[in-house]
């Protein structure tokens, strides 16, 4: 079972490496959105420090949502998804593997880059590490929750816009606790409580989301 998981992750990573522009476009979307806010709001450091948690998290939400479309679409179009669903292997593992690969490719780069962007917002080292940690816990949860939406809208006309309608409301708890963790660190309260809630959400998503995604994939690929 673990072997299957490893094979799927490896395969998806390999495929992603062949189309590097896809990875980069998600990352640059994140960078550009975050760099636009100071231009719209003004360069006042005290204001930027205050709004940074919300902006980083909303940008992460949008970037993660934009990347969802490609989670299953390529395999769906070339028919390999159907093959995988027909094979006797558990779909749960398949979904876990694909989501992990997807997160490694679209989520992790964004997490790693966030402290660098945080410097633009005049954040202290302590806040930067809280931001990094909250994104590290939160973005995998986003990928997991988002996979449900991606599976439900597979092969539907206008699926891209539809995914945002389905998935963004479900992202709200992650947004609240993720931005909350950073904000609590900014105000000196410490973000431990928020981070543990994020961890709980991630564990819950790890258990439940692949179940829903597997069921949705079966329905969509029929």
């Amino acid at each position, binding site marked *: 079972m673990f072997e299957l998981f490893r094979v799927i992750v490896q395969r998806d990573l390999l495929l992603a490496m062949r189309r590097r522009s896809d990875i980069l476009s998600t990352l640059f979307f994140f960078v550009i959105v975050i760099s636009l806010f100071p231009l719209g709001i003004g360069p006042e450091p005290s204001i930027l420090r205050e709004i940074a948690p919300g902006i980083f998290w909303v940008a992460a939400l949008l970037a993660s949502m934009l990347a969802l479309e490609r989670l299953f679409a390529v395999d769906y179009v070339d028919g390999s998804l159907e093959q995988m669903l027909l094979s006797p292997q558990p779909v749960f593992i398949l979904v876990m593997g694909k989501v992990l690969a997807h997160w490694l490719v679209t989520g992790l780069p964004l997490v790693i880059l966030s402290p660098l962007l945080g410097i633009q917002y005049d954040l202290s080292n302590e806040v930067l590490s809280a931001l990094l940690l909250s994104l590290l816990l939160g973005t995998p949860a986003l990928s997991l929750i988002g996979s*449900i939406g991606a599976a439900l809208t597979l092969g539907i006309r206008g699926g891209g816009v*539809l995914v945002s*309608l*389905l998935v*963004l409301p*479900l992202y709200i*708890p992650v947004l609240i606790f993720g931005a*909350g963790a950073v904000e609590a660190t900014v105000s000196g309260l410490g973000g431990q409580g928020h981070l543990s809630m994020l961890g709980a959400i991630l564990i819950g998503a790890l258990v439940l989301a692949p179940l829903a995604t597997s069921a*949705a994939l079966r*329905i969509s690929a029929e």
Partner: protein
Amino acid sequence: MKKGLIHWFKYASPASFYPLAGRIIPWAAVIAVLLFAVGLYMSLFVAPMDYKQGEGYRIIFIHVPAAWMSMFIYVVMVFWAIIGLAVNTRLSAMMAQALAPTGAMFTFLALWTGAFWGKPMWGTWWVWDARLTSELILLFLYIGYIALRGSIDDNRRADRASGILLLVGAVNIPIIHYSVKWWNTLHQGSSVSFQQGSSMSSIMLYGMLIMALACWAYTIAVVMVRVRSVILQREKDTKWVKNLAEIQS
């Protein structure tokens, strides 16, 4: 007992549910009109003025029932979704489909009346109160369901995909609600409740209950008409639809 069970399963088929729904509609409609008449009379004339909130508090006679309905209808839709996914009956998905627009309507009404209550009481049309925010997110969930249903052409796939979306939403609603509540207390938003200051008098409670029952009867009537339309649309190629008196004439 066994016979009773079979009797109920009979109505799980659209063909036998269609006439039953037709018989329910006039009853539900009449009950709704009567209850609304009594409820409006109670909320506008009988209920005494609140000494703190003046006449403005009469809004809660519609705000609270609308908010109740918005949540109840979602729960009922989830119930039908579970049955539809477990037993694979077509009718249960049709019921969920017919309920959604009315649920979204009541959610909108709860938000609208919340704003009209908030303006005189809190001084603004909108506050990021935990309950109002949760209600807004509930509206998004309804819209997502309706949008997903609308964009899948294959009915069977639409039934099951939207059923899964409802289940996912049902699991998420408590999490969303508590996270919004926590967020709200952390940001020290307004903690004013809709029953601020005044303890609820029994006449207010009865008025609200009657309005809520009226909304129930109304929902049943409207949803039955809508589910009949859905049944006709989806079963249009079957023999029993072709033999219906409405179509023969």
